[in-house]
């Protein structure tokens, strides 16, 4: 558990998740906000469409397990207070455009002199330096730049983004792991360092190594609704069933072929295909297609058999069959389906937390992992603006008088 660690979270909306992960793992995370509240609090969409500093869904989703401190870092008094805190902090997280922290005198070179053991985590669109370091960004731009967008969507239209922003979640989750590697090293060396996370690079993982294709003269992967095209081969992963859509895998080779055999054996047992299809060697089938021994039409015709089988059954029937027979089939779910799924309920996954306004409880995705000795705990709902100013300044040895003065000056 990281409950001995203090994190100064200076991130804007690019980096909220990083601090939340460290907070989930037990660290004391202080969200440092400008006096009027973090700009991320003003980011639509809002719950019930009602704007408010505690009602931005993005803010609420990624700022639990943090305390809030307001501090005007544009002003010397604010920076001085932050520097006092840096001396006692283990991590500092920031996501400013490269160069901005140096303008504030809060870059790694400066702060590491105050605290050589500081782990300083920078989350940016394209990295700390390089020709695109100052490129303007957004979720869409980064998904495009990482090689993932071109793989998604319908072949006859533009590629498609996931409509819930993902780019900085990938980067921020990586940043947490990277920060902890740096911290582990520090346990031996007593030295901190800067961690440089570029969202573009981080997201590439979601391209499933297709980025390597041009370097190794591989077959290009192209987008296709509910699947992908590998050269001329069309690989569907989404299929129609009687009452909706399911994902199902019907592929070949030594690893996936055995699953196709199980599926076809079951279909055969229900009279859904002939003996020739049942007796197909699915391990070697792909090689025969690629060598041209079998025409691609043979695979398409066999896909039709699978499609007919799936189309005649409901999502629930198919998911039950998948569990009984070890088939690779699962229903496409809505959020409503997800919230009703018995698996997550049985594991007490959904975590209620009060709304910062004191309104009805909010439902959060639960722990991202179950650690037996140091379990993740949801200790704090997202903080209100400056909610913890008093207690944090008391920890710094600043009393109420100092607090009132800083308030008058507009520093906090």
């Amino acid at each position, binding site marked *: 558990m990281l409950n001995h660690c203090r994190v100064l979270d200076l991130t804007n909306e690019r980096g909220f998740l990083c601090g939340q992960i460290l907070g989930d*793992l*037990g660290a004391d995370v202080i969200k440092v906000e400008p006096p009027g509240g973090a700009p991320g609090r003003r980011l*639509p969409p809002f719950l019930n469409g009602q704007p408010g500093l505690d009602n931005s869904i993005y803010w609420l*989703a990624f700022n639990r397990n943090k305390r809030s401190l307001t501090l005007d870092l544009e002003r010397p008094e604010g920076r001085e207070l932050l520097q006092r805190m840096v001396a006692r902090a283990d991590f500092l997280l920031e996501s400013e455009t490269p160069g901005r922290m140096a303008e504030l005198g809060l870059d790694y070179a400066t702060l590491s002199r105050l605290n050589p053991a500081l782990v300083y985590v920078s989350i940016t669109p394209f990295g700390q330096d*390089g*020709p695109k370091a100052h*490129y303007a960004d*957004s979720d*869409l*731009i980064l998904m495009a730049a990482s090689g993932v967008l*071109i793989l*998604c*969507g319908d072949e006859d239209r533009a590629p*498609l*983004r*996931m*409509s819930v922003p993902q780019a900085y*979640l*990938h980067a921020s989750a*990586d940043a947490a*792991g*990277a920060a902890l590697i*740096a911290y582990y090293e520090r346990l031996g*060396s007593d*030295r901190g360092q800067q*961690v440089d*996370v*570029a969202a*573009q*690079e981080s997201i590439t*993982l*979601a391209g*499933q190594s297709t980025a*390597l294709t041009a*370097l*190794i*003269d591989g*077959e290009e*992967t192209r987008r296709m*609704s509910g699947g*992908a095209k590998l*050269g001329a081969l069309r690989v569907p*992963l*989404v299929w*129609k069933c009687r009452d909706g859509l399911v*994902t199902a895998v019907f592929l070949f080779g030594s690893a*996936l072929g055995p699953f196709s055999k199980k599926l076809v054996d079951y279909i055969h047992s229900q009279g859904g295909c002939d003996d020739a299809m049942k007796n197909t060697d699915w391990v070697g089938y792909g090689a025969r297609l690629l060598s041209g021994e079998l025409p691609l039409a043979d695979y398409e015709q066999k896909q039709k058999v699978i499609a007919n089988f799936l189309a005649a059954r409901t999502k629930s029937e198919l998911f039950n069959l998948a569990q009984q027979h070890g088939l690779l089939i*699962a229903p496409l*779910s809505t*959020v409503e*389906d*997800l*919230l009703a799924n*018995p698996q*997550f309920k*049985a*594991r007490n996954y959904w975590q209620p937390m009060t709304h910062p306004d004191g309104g009805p409880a909010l439902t959060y995705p639960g722990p991202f992992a179950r*650690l*037996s*000795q140091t379990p993740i705990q949801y200790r704090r709902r997202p903080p209100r603006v400056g909610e913890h100013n008093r207690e944090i300044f008391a920890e710094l040895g600043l009393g109420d008088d100092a607090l009132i003065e800083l308030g008058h000056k507009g520093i906090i």
Partner: protein
Amino acid sequence: MATGKPLADVKVLDFFWVLAGPGVTRSLADYGATVIRVEAAVRTDPARTVGPFKGGRSGPETSGLWWNNNAGKYGLTLDLTKPGAKAIVRDLVRWADVVTESFSPKAMRAWGFDYESLRKIKPDLIMMSSCLLGQTGPLANFAGFGNLAAALCGFYNFVGWPDRQPSGPFSAYTDYIAPRFGLAALMAALIHRKRTGEGQYIDQAQAESALQFLAMPILDTAATGKHYSPVGNFDVNYAPHGLYPAAGDDRWIAIACRTEEHWQALTDLMQRPELRRDERFAGLAQRQNNRDELDRLIAEWTVRFDPIATADRLQARGVPAHVVATSADMVADPQLRHRQHFVEVEHGTLGRTWIENSRFKLLRTPARLERSAPAFGEHNQLVLEEILGYSEERIADLVAEGALG
């Protein structure tokens, strides 16, 4: 640490396979951990059977996906039905700080390698299990790939056009989220162990990690009952916002205007200043309301030019824009080159192979990429002789027994 490798003292016995797990141990290897990746002698890792393949030819050693997920690890093949192989595992558990596995929950118990058994061998062991839906609950034994978890989580419903069935994310989406959380959980356990001497067991449900990325719609639907359906490339904070055709075959440019300054710069470059006075496009809300017409006008402009050149021109004016990158674009991308995103490393049988670099940089103790993924059984001898100190005779007996496959 003198070696400059942050995880030089971390030893990992790695039974992870496919994608979600090996992505975690790849990062550990990047930063200096010794990772012994066990492969079943009789069951091919699916990652070896999925491309991109070198020269477009599939084969057990030619998968770029395999190289990328397992670079820097030692490869050991075992037939776990053989007593000799189980004895090797027990010795490796004694050697290891961390044991990882991503079989379905019942498999490790069947072999006698569940956490309770292994901690008797190594009391301060960290063991991490990663499977689709977790070690407990009615669906614990529902095994499969990331596309199944992504479907159950609801990711498919967020990638699609309003007038069509959902297109869905590419391939096995939860496999690209889970490794990031898996790494954070495992590092937290390693830090705890280094400070207290205490090991522990980690149960990672890949779906439970991945759902962090759907926290927004989950909060919203649970609180307000809002139903989400596909919206194409619409985003409430931007207009215009989308992917526009460019010159060439299946070439696209992403453009995202958040501010009036972005809109002004875009219309300047389009040489359509009159659009700024057009009331259909006055302000974000109007541009969103009339986005079909707006997108048509922008596409008329973008389709005439190379997408990289257009993106550079837009970026020079501060407008968020980028080519929708293909593999060839990624390889040529000056930023990815600057960061040495693609690196060539030694491979046991192929000479050299390309892999992608660590996804993040530790500036004082950078990742050291020395080897590609192991060839099948490449380090059997090294593991048994140098790491476990087995005699030549004992190794010969194990080979004769078929313990190594």
